[in-house]
C-alpha cells in the first residue's frame, strides 16, 4: 500500500488510521521488552538472555512515541513495527537495532529512504519514536503472538477407523485409554503422549503418560539367562535391575546374548507409516474419550 506512504503527518489522521486497520496484528498483542531477569554479570547459554535488554524507556516518552508511530509510521511498517504494506520490519532493522536514542533513525526519518518519504519531526519527537521502537523484545527465538486456538483439525471418525486397525492389538478405549482425554486435557500433550509416551515433558506440561520401561535378558555362555529392567546398554556393557532389586552389569562379548524388549517398539515402527492426517485424525478421536 504505497499510496499510504505519501500521507504526511499533518494531512490525514483519518486516512492513516484507515490504512492502519487494514493490517492484521493488534498492538495490544505485543509485550514491551521485559526488564532483564537475574543480576547482571552472569549470563546463560544460547538464545534468550544472551543479549542485553534495553532498559524500559520513560513512560511519558513511550506514550508520545507510540502515538506518533501509530499516526505516521504504522500504515507502512505495521502497528507492531514488524512490517506491513510497503514498509519493511523495523524490529530486525540493522539501523534500529544499532540506534540508541534516535541518533541513527533520525536521519532516515528526516531524509527519507527509497520509497519512504521525508518526515518533519522535531528532535525530541524522534527521541520519543526511538523509545517506542526500542520497547519491543527482539530475539532470534521470537515468541509467537498469534497462536492457533486449537490443534484439532482431524476427523474423529476417520481416526477411530485408524485406531481400530493399528492400535487395538495393544490398546482399548474401554481399558487403558478410558477417559484419556480427561486425564490429559491439553490436546497437544495428548497427541504427543499417544505418539510416543513421555515425549512431551517440561514447559508446564502435565505429567506424561509413561510406558513400562524396556526389559532385557542377558545370557552369558554356559550361564542361566538373567532378566530385569534395562538400566543402560552400549556396545560394551549392559546393566539391569532384577525383580529382587539387584543391580547387575555385564561386559558384552561376541558370545553374550542381549535381548531388549521395548514396549514402545510398535510406536516407533508406526512412525514410518503414519501420514500427518492419520495422526491428526487419531488425536481428534482420542479427544472424544472423556
Amino acid at each position, binding site marked *: 500500500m504505497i499510496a499510504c506512504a505519501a500521507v504526511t503527518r499533518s494531512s490525514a489522521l483519518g486516512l492513516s488510521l484507515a490504512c492502519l486497520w487494514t493490517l492484521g496484528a493488534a498492538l495490544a498483542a505485543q509485550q514491551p521488552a521485559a526488564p532483564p531477569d537475574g543480576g547482571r554479570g*552472569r549470563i546463560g547459554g544460547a538464545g534468550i538472555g544472551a543479549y542485553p535488554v534495553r532498559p524500559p524507556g520513560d513512560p511519558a516518552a513511550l506514550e508520545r512515541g507510540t502515538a506518533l508511530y501509530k499516526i505516521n509510521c504504522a500504515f507502512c511498517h505495521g502497528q507492531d513495527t514488524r512490517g506491513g504494506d510497503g514498509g519493511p520490519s523495523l524490529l530486525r532493522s540493522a539501523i534500529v*537495532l544499532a540506534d540508541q536514542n534516535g541518533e541513527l533513525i533520525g536521519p532516515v526519518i528526516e531524509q527519507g529512504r527509497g520509497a519512504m518519504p521525508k518526515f518533519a519531526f522535531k528532535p525530541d519527537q524522534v527521541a520519543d519514536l526511538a523509545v517506542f521502537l526500542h520497547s519491543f523484545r527482539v530475539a532470534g527465538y521470537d515468541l509467537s503472538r498469534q497462536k492457533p486456538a486449537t490443534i484439532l483439525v482431524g476427523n474423529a471418525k476417520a481416526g477411530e477407523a485408524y485406531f481400530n486397525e493399528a492400535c487395538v492389538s495393544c490398546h482399548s478405549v474401554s481399558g487403558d485409554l478410558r477417559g484419556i482425554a480427561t486425564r490429559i486435557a491439553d490436546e497437544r500433550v495428548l497427541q504427543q503422549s499417544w505418539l510416543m509416551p513421555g515425549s512431551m515433558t517440561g514447559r508446564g506440561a502435565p505429567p506424561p503418560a509413561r510406558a513400562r520401561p524396556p526389559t532385557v535378558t542377558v545370557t552369558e555362555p554356559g550361564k542361566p539367562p538373567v532378566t530385569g529392567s534395562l538400566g543402560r546398554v552400549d556396545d560394551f556393557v549392559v546393566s539391569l535391575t532384577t525383580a529382587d532389586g539387584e543391580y547387575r552389569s555385564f561386559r558384552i562379548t561376541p558370545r553374550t546374548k542381549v535381548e531388549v524388549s521395548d514396549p514402545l*517398539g510398535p510406536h516407533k515402527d508406526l512412525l514410518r507409516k503414519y501420514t500427518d492426517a492419520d495422526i491428526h485424525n487419531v488425536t481428534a478421536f482420542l479427544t472424544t474419550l472423556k
Partner: protein
Amino acid sequence: MTMPRPPARSLAVALALAATGALFAAGGLDPAQILKPLGDSWPTYSGDYSGRRYSTLAEINQSNVKRLGLAWASRLVAGPGPAVPPPAPPFGPRPSVTVVGGVGDNDFVGGTVVKGGVLAVNGVLYVTAPDNVWALDAQDGRELWHFYWRTRGGTHIGNRGAAMWGNYLFFVTPDDYLISLDARTGQERWHKEIAPFSQQYFLTSAPVVVGNHVIVGTGNDLDSPGYLMAFDPETGEQQWRWYAVPMNPGDPGLETWKNLDAARNGGGHPWLPGSYDPETRLYIFGTGNPTPAYTSVARGDGDNLFTCAIVAVHVDTGKMAWYFQTSPHDTHDWDSAQTPILVDGTINGKPRKLVVTASRNGYYFTLDRLTGERLVTSKFSDTANWADGLNEKGQPRRIPAKDHHVAGALVSSNNGGATNWPPQAFSPETGLLYVPSAEAYAMYYLTETDPRGAMGLGGKDEVGIATMGSYITAIDYKTGKTAWRHRFQTAAGNAGRAPGLLVTAGKLLFGGDVSGNFFAMDPANGSLLWHARIGNVSNAPQTYRVGGKQHVLVASGDTLYAFALY
C-alpha cells in the same frame, strides 16, 4: 626537494616480507606448513586444508591399539582465575596465570565444554572454549598460560578453535570480536569487532589461516545477513568480505528472494571453517540456513541463494567462483555449514578433483571442486521424509506440507539434523566418508499464524518424538551408497548424535559413541577394536606426535585426554 620516496605500497610489501621472515624464523607456524600432509603437528582446525582429518601417523595401528592407554588428562578451568595469583612455589614451575581481557563485564557460567579443534604446533597445544584459550604442553598437558575474555554477552554455544600465523593466535568470541594473542605468552595483541553485536551476531567458528589471510565467518539467529571475512594477520584490517545473501540491487541471487529487504535479512551464516585447495586457491565452505528459519513466507517462494550451499571463493579476493545449494529454500534450520572435504578421486574411470559433504538435511553430495558441478547425490538418512526425490539439478525436492502444521507435521530429521557440525572424516585408503549421524523424528507445530511469519527461529514449536538410532555411516564417494553403517547400542529413546571423527594411516577410525565411550574402529567395516569410557566425547579426536610418540587427543567436556602406547 629531498630524496624520492619509494612508493608506499612496495615499502609496505618489503616491510611485510621482512617481518614475515623474522616471524617464522623466530618460531611459530609458517602457513606453508599447513600445506603438508597431516602428520606430527595439527596446525589448523581440520589438521590440514583438505578437511579429511586423515593422519599419516601409523605408530598406533590395528596391531597394537589394544594396548592404547592414558598418557595424561588435563582439566581446563575457565573464567578470570583467582583475583590474587597464588604465590610461586619454593621449587618447580610457577603456576600459570590467567590473562584477562574483554570489553564487557559479564562472565559466562554455563560450564566449559571443548567443542573445537586443538592446534598442536611445536610441542604446544592451543585449545579453546567460549571466551577462553589455553596453551598446554603437548607432552603432559600442563598449562602454560590461559587467556580469558570478559564478555558483553552473545550466544555462548561453542567455540571451534584457534588459528595460528607465526607466533600469533586468532580466535573469535560470542560478543563478536576477532582477537589476536601472542602464542608464547597469551598476551593480547589486538581485538576487533568484526560483526555488530547490536544485531545479535555471535561468533563461534575457528578462523582458518591461508597465506596472509585469516578467514572467519559469522553466526546469528536474528535474520541478519551471514558473511565470510578475511583479515590481515598482522593488523587485523579486513581484506575482503563475502555476503551469503544479496545485499544490493542487482546482486546475483536476488531473484530467488521476495525482495531486497528479505534477502538482506536472509541469514546463510558460514559458521564453521571451510577447506582450501592450494592448486586453485579456492576456499570452499558451507553456508547456513536462510532466515526466518521456519516461517519462510517472508522469503518468497524462491531458492534463497546462497543459503544452505557449498560455496567456493577465491582466497585472495573473496569473489565467488561457484556454488551448489544442498537445500533450496530450507525450512528446518538444516544448515549446510559442515566443513566440506576435498578428495582427489576417480569418477567413471577419470581422475577428478572433488569436494564431498554429508548435509544436515540427510543427503550426501559429491561435487567437482573446480566447477561446482554435481556428480553424485544420495540419501544417507533412512528416515528423512521432508523431500520426495531429487530435482533436475540433483537437489532434494522439498515437500511443503512437511515444513510444519498447526496440528503438527511428523518430520525426520529433528532440528539437529541427520548430521551436524561434528566433523566428518575421509580415508583415501578406503575411499569412504565417515559421518556421525542420527535418525530422529519430531513434530513441528506452527505456532505463529500471523501471515507475516516470525523472526529468526520463531514461529514453531518442535517437540521430539523419538531417536530411531545413532550411527557412524560410511559413504562411498563414487556412488553415494552407504558401504557400512554402525548402529550404536543404546537404551530405548536415549540416543543422541555421535561426536566427530578422525581416521589414520594406522587403519583406525577414532570417535565417540553416545554412551560416553571413546573408541577405535576398523575403517573398512566399522568393527570396534578398542574403547575407553571417559564420558561423552565433545569434540573430534585428533592425533599428533611429540617426544617421539604418537598421541591421540580427545575432549570430554572440560577435560582433555591424551592416549599413547607405553
